[in-house]
């Protein structure tokens, strides 16, 4: 996983509420046996028309908007617990999702796959979406160490689980974290009262 401390980048506005994991990655793409390639199919049914042509109205197909920050409507990532949704967003290149609420399981999956969910107030979200929409060059700063989001709309702090914060800053996911504890685990094995 890549380290995350601070970034200042442009953002992609997606002002839709209750985006569920089925929209992020439709179920028919779940058959693969590894994590790669899901980025190509993120928001598949919104990005492409039924005949396979690009849907020019969808924001990811609009060249004016780009950047690793996705700003989305309330209750992002609801629905099925599939981790593939996080893989798809990360695979596409998103590093941050800003919303006014995240579904619990999605939040965990996102953090474990190098995507930072930044929760802001509804008012902040509304103004931010409007500002980006009007000016696609708008820069947004996400400072993880300070837990602050900054843009011309203003500054706001956000919450993050302290363990997950350490993981993101160091570029660890759960597996990396557990591997970094190898010695502690080995000591535990040696010192157990009842070994298996």
């Amino acid at each position: 996983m890549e380290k995350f401390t601070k970034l200042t980048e442009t953002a992609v506005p997606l002002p839709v509420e209750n985006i569920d994991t089925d929209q992020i990655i439709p179920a028919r793409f779940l058959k693969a046996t590894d994590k790669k390639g899901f980025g190509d199919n993120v928001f598949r049914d919104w990005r492409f028309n039924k005949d396979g042509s690009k849907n020019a109205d969808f924001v990811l197909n609009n060249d004016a908007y780009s950047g690793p920050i996705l700003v989305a409507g309330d209750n992002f990532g609801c629905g099925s617990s599939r981790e593939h949704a996080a893989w798809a967003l990360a695979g596409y290149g998103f590093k941050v999702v800003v919303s006014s609420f995240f579904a619990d399981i999605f939040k965990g999956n996102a953090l474990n796959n190098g995507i930072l969910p930044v929760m802001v107030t509804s008012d902040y979200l509304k103004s931010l979406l409007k500002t980006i929409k009007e000016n696609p060059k708008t820069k947004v700063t996400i400072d993880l160490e300070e837990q602050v989001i900054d843009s011309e709309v203003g500054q706001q702090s956000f919450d993050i689980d302290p363990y997950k914060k350490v993981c993101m800053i160091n570029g660890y996911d759960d597996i990396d974290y557990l591997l970094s504890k190898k010695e502690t685990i080995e000591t535990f094995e040696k010192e157990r009262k009842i070994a298996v």
Partner: protein
Amino acid sequence: MAGKTLFDKVWDDHIVDTVANGPQILYIDKHLIHEVTSPQAFAELEERGIPVARPDQIVATADHNTPTVDQHLPIQDTLSRNQLKKLTENCEKHGITLYGLGHEYNGIVHVIAPELGVTQPGMTMVCGDSHTSTHGAFGTIAFGIGTSQVAQVFASQCLLLTKPKKLRVSVNGELKKGVLPKDVILYIISQIGTNAGTGYFCEYAGNVFEDMSMEGRMTVCNMSIEMGARGGMIAPDETTFSYIEGRKFAPKAAEWDQKVAYWKTLPTDADAKFDKEYHFDAADIAPMVTYGTNPGMGIKVSGRIPDKEDENLEKSLEYMGFQKGESLIGKTINYVFIGSCTNSRIEDFRIAANYVKGKQKAAHVNAWLVPGSQQVAKQLVEEGLDHVFIEAGFALRQPGCSACLAMNDDKIPRGEYCVSTSNRNFEGRQGQGARTILASPLMAAATAVEGKIIDITKSLN
């Protein structure tokens, strides 16, 4: 200091470390794997170039997607064939013990681990399957995990977890004739609902569970997940010890004595506190059937489907083709399935055979018996139960998950009812449009013979 529960004791003995303001690192003693949920986890390790940390603490079997006929022939279904091939390759590459198709120890993952003595009290066990809770019958912390957690355990033999809360369900008194462990758990879930256990680990206590065989305890713990609990446990006692003693991987000689001494320290202390408690009277429990599309929608076989305004109920009944206020007695049934990790152990077949003996199944019924393992299949033959069933017209198949999740060809046709000893009656679980009625092996056997649902308590008296 307040006493500790069985769950506390086992959990606390497995904490490797606690992350400041974060989760705990829990050590996993045994990791069970099968063909469906392991390939992505192996791929994850490969991508990172890391080895499997403790291959000797992993046991693999093929069960979810395997055929239950002609297991000696090459597998017809491509997906199944590829999954088994992948599992075999991965196990060979990483030095993991595999009891593959046709092996004398092959079978459903939650049936083989206890019967081989892999499952022991005081352990932590995980598997990429939600019914891993079965092993809790031994006083083991056992629960299902997702694929990325399978990869975590492969990599480190540990998991990052937050400790769940504690729930106790006590049932005391005397069970009526014809009431089996399956009825006890279906009754509990029908009373407390499918969400009562969410966020909790459950302990079952009271004389009803103390008096149960290990097979019965496994049936109960198996369905803990159906009330939302991560897992269920029963305190280890003499019944537990004598079940384990002498099995293939059971501790031997001095190690046996040492382990038993430890296991005896595990039961919940008298002054321990639970976050939530339920109490039931055994006399209130009767043979159960489900009428809806989740395991909480159960009634006494002599009862009636609830008659109340409820959108969920209406949707379920529409799927099932039942009416509010209706009794299920007398309903014609064309399919009966005795199998799955809930009820496919030797005791389940003994109970069914005892009822079936000297009778014939109804002509219109397809009755499938799927033993949980090769060992169970062998024992069926040794006890002559195979003859009882075959003479009665039942189809005895080869071990596997089979119609429990209908991933292989064992599917119930659209619109048909199946009285099933499995654990889930969700829409489409046993095949698209299939209608599942969960029940005990005794109820299932009686349905096969009568060709319809009967009030078993009447024919027992």
